């Protein structure tokens, strides 16, 4: 392996580690929220610093790669996409930690089984996790063929999100005393919806890296 290839492999390995860490943060967040596990929520919040450190390191390592090796063509697209993906992973981890903080700090009753059911919380997490995992596979195998399928999953998240708005506003309408808790729940769901959007951005970066196509701001239907 040539020297610059070694350096590139190092960047790939690092983004892989960060990606897996963020996936495990989402898995833990799902567990913590659904079982109201305070211990686990604490762990998530403390691991957030580790994610931040990955982002800083990747940022500077990518800068060095560009400065020293002047990458072009697919090499350039790879480094640029790694930089953007690491920023996005950090945001995703931020939202996960935000949900964990809700578990730690809220004064509301935990989500009842019935609420979890009608808000489709578990389903939402499962879609997010499958998006995150499928995009990592796509990145590693340099294959953007399933990009449109991953992007389509985000539609599922958006649907759950908008029906949650209906359900919760109805709930708040019925029981004014509980309005604050209803809003807090809404904010949790909003965070999950944002994770879905960021995951779509990652898929767009992968398509740019592999096929040099720009999907951004084009409307996901066209893909």
């Amino acid at each position, binding site marked *: 392996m040539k020297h610059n290839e070694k350096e590139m492999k190092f960047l790939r390995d690092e983004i892989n580690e960060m990606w897996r860490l963020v996936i495990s943060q989402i898995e833990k967040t799902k567990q913590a929220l659904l079982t109201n596990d305070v211990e686990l929520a604490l762990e998530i919040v403390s691991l957030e610093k580790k994610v931040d450190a990955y982002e800083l390191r990747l940022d500077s390592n990518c800068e060095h790669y560009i400065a020293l090796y*002047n990458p*072009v*063509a*697919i*090499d350039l697209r790879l480094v640029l996409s790694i930089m953007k993906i690491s920023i996005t992973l950090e945001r995703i981890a931020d939202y996960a930690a935000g949900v964990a903080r809700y578990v730690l700090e809220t004064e509301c009753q935990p989500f009842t089984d019935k609420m979890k059911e009608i808000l489709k919380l578990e389903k939402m997490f499962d879609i997010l996790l499958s998006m995150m995992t499928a995009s990592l596979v796509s990145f590693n195998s340099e294959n953007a063929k399933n990009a449109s399928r991953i992007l389509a999953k985000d539609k599922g998240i958006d649907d759950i999100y908008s029906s949650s708005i209906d359900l919760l506003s109805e709930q708040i309408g019925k029981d004014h005393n509980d309005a604050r808790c209803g809003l807090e729940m809404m904010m949790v769901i909003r965070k999950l919806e944002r994770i879905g959007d960021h995951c779509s951005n990652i898929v767009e970066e992968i398509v740019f890296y592999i096929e*040099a196509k720009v999907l951004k701001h084009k409307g996901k239907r066209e893909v």
Partner: protein
Amino acid sequence: MIVTKNINFYYGDFQALKNITMSMDANTVTAFIGPSGCGKSTFLRLFNRMNDLIDGTRLEGECLIKGKNIYDKSINIDALRKDIGMVFQKPNPFPKSVFENVAYGLRVNGIKDKKFIADKVEETLKAAALFEEVKDKLHKSAFELSGGQQQRLCIARALAVEPSILLMDEPASALDPISTAKIEELIHELKKKYTIVIVTHNMQQAARVSDKTGFFMLGELIEYSDTKKMFLNPDKETTQNYITGRFG
């Protein structure tokens, strides 16, 4: 501005260029890149008929400049070379003063008006971004200048006779980074008035100075596209392997 159609070129039995069809626009910088020996210089030298000077060579196909086939019998070669300036890898000033190097082409063309020549020399040295550095040394020998200054002097010499095309064969490869940057800056400036074709083995240089890039290999034009596209998303796998250094 320059159009070639199905160019084949031979040194004796050896075919150095294979079926090259290409068109270069006015007021743009076109760069030729590719491994050494792939035929870049040979192709460049076709445009001012410099290959004619080499024995045993043979050309097939057409080379049109401003719509005229420059290999047509009716072409006046001196007029052609006046219209198409050339700058080489190693600066090759004449063993004369800085002033006389630039004035040379004017004198050869029969201009005698001293005031006109002096003005033209100054104007051209300014166009070559050299005037400020040499204005106190105009009558010193050109060899007293640094390598980078000598190269800009050679560019000035080429510009003095008001060509429309400037051919450059690795003009900065013998220069340090600062002189190289000055030449590259100059190329950006000059393309407003001239059509520039530059051969370089330095890909980053092609990326920095050119609007379009042609990638050659073993006498063939593999890919020709906008420089931005070439360095972000080349069409051909071979191009990608070459520019990312994956060869060998």
